[in-house]
């Protein structure tokens, strides 16, 4: 910390300029730098996954399977699914933004276990590289679900390698989860009670619960598949006495809650953004907070709805169907409370808010179509059609990526100290919203008409809707490219952003500078007000305690 003192005369020391060597990044234990590392990693995998999506939509622009062979097509949607789910969506908001802002939000210098935090980034990157190698070297065509017995007994290619990659990213996710659970429990600043926490923290806490409780099950399941492939035992192979449905049970025990790993953090971001840009405390704070926990818990009781048509007992199906409907309740609680927050709020139409509003629209459509799939009878008709594809894209892309982009635009100035051009950002948000709906709304109709997923060709009569969908995808792509351009542009040419460009409440805005110092705060703050206290603008959310005389050798935190 000696460097801190010498620097401060000319330029304020921040987390970026404190050290600038490559090693200082690769060995960093600063939660902010690890957040940035994650951001770079997931952006890379998002780009790869988007390329595969582009190939898929290009192929489907014409009814004939002319651009890609069916084999290549299978590999493309597998690349798309594996990369987007395991290497983008699951780590996106929790690992990148959770790392960057969560400790600041609760008034901590860092997460509870900085070394574990760095380790989890390495697990993520190594896993990602292994999976990418597997996907490029011959590729795999199992789909992201690795269903047995195809994946364990028949599929050729690098399935085991891809599984090792997914295992590693799974443990990375578990480590991040453990870290955040302990951080939220133990690292809160004095006065930061549970009901003063920003709702983003509640959402990340609920997400971490799922990560810790669910991920190990998919880890052991995929491990069994890999062992089965290499040793020739038959745990999931009906020819050898195994049961493929058991794989689905174990897989969805994690993978259904995993969709809440993707969407809960986005919901947390939306709570922050809506409160800030409505200049109003989130309506029904307690309900929104507890609905996050409710979603995390109920999410573990519904996995069988992925298996209605597999030979699962119909009685189990009935129970799973009923429980699935229950998830709608906490989701609706959130949605209504957000709308109540905007209503009577003083709404500011900055870019993050546009993304948040986009989230609301898309998430509502995604959520409501989920009810069609939760109901047994309609599910039988809609299983494995484009209706399902459209539904989960509305939740995971419409929900999670809108939340992700909202977060990126909301905290960009904190991360980089720069502000991007607002009008371009608003335009991009609009493009994403329109492009997204053009791409995926036709797929609801296609699915309803019976078009199955995972085929590279289809009958002539579905051509128009598919073409519309492919055209929409190019608009969507433009909507994703624009931010990439103006955000990078803003790094150099953007106007310098102040500490609190949005006039937001919260520790990370009121006490932490844009480009935070290595330990975020001057001293450990004392929190005196609840989150989103827009009704009392004169009262700071947190204050610094009066400085104490420093004892010899003390003052560890600078």
């Amino acid at each position: 910390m000696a460097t801190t003192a010498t620097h401060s005369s000319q330029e304020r020391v921040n987390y970026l300029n404190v050290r600038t060597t490559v090693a200082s990044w690769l060995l960093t234990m600063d939660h902010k730098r690890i957040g940035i590392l994650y951001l770079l990693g997931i952006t890379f995998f998002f780009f790869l996954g988007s390329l595969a999506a582009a190939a898929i939509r290009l192929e489907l622009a014409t009814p004939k399977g002319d651009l890609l062979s069916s084999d290549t097509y299978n590999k493309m949607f597998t690349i798309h699914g594996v990369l987007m789910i395991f290497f983008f969506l699951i780590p996106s908001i929790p690992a990148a933004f959770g790392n960057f802002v969560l400790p600041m939000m609760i008034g901590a210098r860092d997460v509870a276990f900085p070394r574990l935090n760095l380790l989890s980034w390495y697990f993520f990157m190594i896993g990602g590289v292994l999976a990418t190698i597997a996907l490029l070297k011959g590729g795999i065509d199992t789909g992201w679900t690795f269903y047995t017995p195809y994946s364990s007994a028949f599929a050729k290619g690098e399935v085991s390698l891809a599984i090792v990659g997914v295992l590693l990213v799974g443990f990375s996710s578990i480590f991040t989860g453990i870290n955040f659970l302990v951080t939220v429990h133990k690292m809160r600043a004095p006065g930061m009670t549970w009901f003063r926490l920003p709702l983003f923290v509640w959402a990340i806490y609920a997400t971490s619960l799922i990560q810790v409780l669910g991920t190990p099950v998919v880890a052991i399941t995929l491990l069994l598949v890999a062992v089965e492939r290499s040793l020739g035992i038959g745990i999931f192979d009906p020819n050898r006495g195994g049961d493929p449905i058991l794989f689905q049970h174990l897989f969805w025990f994690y993978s259904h809650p995993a969709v809440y790993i993707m969407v809960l953090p986005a919901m947390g971001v939306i709570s922050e953004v809506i409160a800030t840009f409505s200049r109003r405390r989130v309506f029904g704070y307690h309900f929104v907070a507890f609905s996050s926990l409710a979603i995390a818990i109920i999410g573990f009781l519904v996995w069988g709805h992925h298996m209605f048509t597999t030979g699962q007992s119909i009685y189990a199906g009935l129970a799973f169907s009923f429980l699935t409907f229950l998830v709608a309740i906490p989701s609706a609680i959130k949605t209504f409370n957000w709308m109540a927050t905007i209503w009577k709020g003083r709404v500011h139409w900055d870019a993050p808010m546009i993304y948040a509003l986009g989230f609301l629209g898309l998430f509502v459509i995604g959520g409501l179509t989920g009810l069609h799939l939760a109901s047994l009878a309609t599910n039988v008709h809609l299983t494995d059609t484009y209706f399902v594809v459209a539904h989960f894209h509305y939740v995971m892309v419409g929900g999670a990526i809108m939340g992700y982009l909202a977060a990126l635009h909301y905290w960009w100035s904190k991360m980089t100290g720069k502000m991007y051009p607002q009008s371009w950002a608003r335009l991009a948000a609009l493009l994403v919203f329109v492009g997204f709906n053009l791409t995926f709304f036709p797929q609801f109709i296609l699915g309803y008409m019976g078009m199955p997923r995972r085929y590279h060709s289809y009958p002539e009569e579905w051509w128009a809707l598919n073409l519309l969908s492919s055209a929409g995808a190019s608009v969507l792509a433009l909507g994703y490219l624009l931010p990439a351009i103006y955000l990078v542009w803003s790094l150099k040419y953007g106007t310098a952003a102040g500490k609190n460009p949005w006039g937001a409440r919260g520790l990370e805005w009121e006490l932490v500078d844009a480009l935070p110092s290595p330990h975020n705060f001057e001293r450990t703050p004392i929190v005196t007000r609840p989150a989103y206290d827009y009704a009392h603008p004169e009262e700071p959310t947190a204050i610094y305690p009066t400085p104490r005389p420093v004892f010899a050798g003390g003052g560890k935190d600078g």
Partner: protein
Amino acid sequence: MAQHHREEHTHAQPVSFYAKTLWVLMALLVVTVWAGFQKMPDWFGIAVALTIAVSKATIVILNFMHVKFSSKLAWLFAGAGFFWLIIMFAFAFADYASRHWEPETGW
């Protein structure tokens, strides 16, 4: 002096506490092996073996792992894993156990 201050914060128990715990565990081990050799219906054998296993695990968790003397939070975390395990077992078994039930006609 500093040492005394530290000890107040630890969960260190008298040696006899750990020794007694070990004796109880050993007794349960003998009982479970003995029960394993008795003739009894399969479901009953499972019930007996699992009851003893759960008791042994609980004793280890409470006494050796010091959860007995830990904060509520430690109790919560120690319980959560096992609770979620029960969820997994219950729901997966609900499927397998009811798979062969015949649906009621005219439903």
